[in-house]
């Protein structure tokens, strides 16, 4: 457990020394979601209808931006080898790296979403559901993305391959995440969608670090 926390601390410290990499993903999210209201114009009904989908797609793409770097730097300088040979279980260290990735690339999106949602004329309760859905969904995106990042590690042109590999796997999160807000606006209640998101997250928390570890061991051979 101490090794898990040490990995989180290490990755946060590294991000602090190289802020631009983290800020790019956050600014990307802010700019992409702001372009739509500007492009479509003041049509509150239409904007309200497309808001959940746009915010979710922007969150998917913003998460994807940081993924190629998740393991690439550690692989390049040999620290990943040292992690694989460490007495601490590699799965624990990998889980720490995924948590750090979420804290840096996922949590800021969750916190910004209610502010950005205002541009789409979402009412406060819908903003609450949107934030809750992203809070459940963004860790899922980081967990699934880590598997893709590990599988494409060291592959030439891995960034594009990573997008092709991971985006289809993001579809369930997108459907239920955006669906939660839509269902709430339509007055149907978002409970079912949120429960399904939470179930997928619970499943991913157990399996994704394990699958990522297996993929990393292959990449290191």
């Amino acid at each position, binding site marked *: 457990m*101490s*090794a898990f926390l*040490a*990995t989180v*601390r*290490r990755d946060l*410290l*590294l991000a602090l*020394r*190289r802020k631009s990499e983290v800020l790019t993903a956050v600014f990307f999210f802010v700019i992409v979601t702001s372009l739509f209201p500007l492009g479509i114009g003041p049509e509150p009904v239409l904007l309200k209808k497309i808001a959940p989908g746009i915010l979710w797609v922007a969150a998917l793409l913003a998460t994807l931006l940081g993924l190629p770097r998740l393991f690439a730097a550690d692989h390049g*300088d*040999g*620290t990943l*080898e*040292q*992690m*694989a*040979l*460490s*007495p*601490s279980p590699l799965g624990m*260290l990998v889980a720490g790296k995924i948590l750090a990735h979420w804290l840096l690339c996922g949590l800021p999106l969750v916190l910004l979403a209610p502010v950005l949602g205002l541009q789409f004329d979402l009412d406060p309760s819908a903003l609450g559901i949107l934030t809750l859905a992203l809070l459940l969904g963004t860790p899922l995106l980081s967990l699934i993305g880590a598997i893709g990042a590990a599988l494409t590690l060291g592959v030439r042109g891995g960034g594009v391959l990573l997008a092709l590999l991971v985006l289809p796997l993001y579809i369930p999160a997108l459907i239920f995440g955006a669906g939660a807000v839509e269902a709430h606006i339509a007055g149907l209640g978002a409970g079912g969608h949120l429960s399904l998101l939470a179930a997928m997250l619970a499943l991913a928390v157990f399996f994704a670090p394990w699958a990522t570890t297996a993929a990393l061991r292959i990449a*290191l*051979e």
Partner: protein
Amino acid sequence: MLNVSGLACSRGERRLFADVGFSLDAGEWLHVQGENGAGKTSLMRLLVGLSPADAGEIRWRGEATPCLEFRRDLIYLGHHAAVKEDLTPLENLRLSAALDGIGLDERAALAALIRLGLRGREDLPVRVLSAGQKRRVLLARLLTRPAVLWVLDEAFNALDVAAVKLLGELIAEHLAKGGMAVLTSHQPLPVPGGRTLVL
């Protein structure tokens, strides 16, 4: 304690080596030699368990590797710098110890860096250090991480005369305490005793 037998490795169609075997006991060290491309680094990676062997087995204290006990007793320093350029030498040492689940206080980390001749450099980002100094930061792990088996791949590269002598002393001290070492190098090593394996 370390028994290796019948080890074979091929890259693609090419067979690098076959039927490599040796054993090491407390206080012994092995010098792996061979021309470029003979498979020295491949042998090291097989030995530590980073890649699987085509055939053969590696036993540590009678148990087949990779096992937890082996990883706890092993330290492997390869070609890579394996230090984070954005962190200082002190942070690098303490964080890599924490990742290994070992508590390392600042005094002990500082003492290791000073022994490696990095006094006054402990708070600079590693990025501004020279190649040889980066290597010294990595070698400081030999002092902070308690390990029985040292596997050092080309550890003498990029080091100046004083550092080569120092590393030789560190290895000799380690062997005197009952440690073991497997080293690769093209130059003669400043460590007494030892057996040679030519690939």
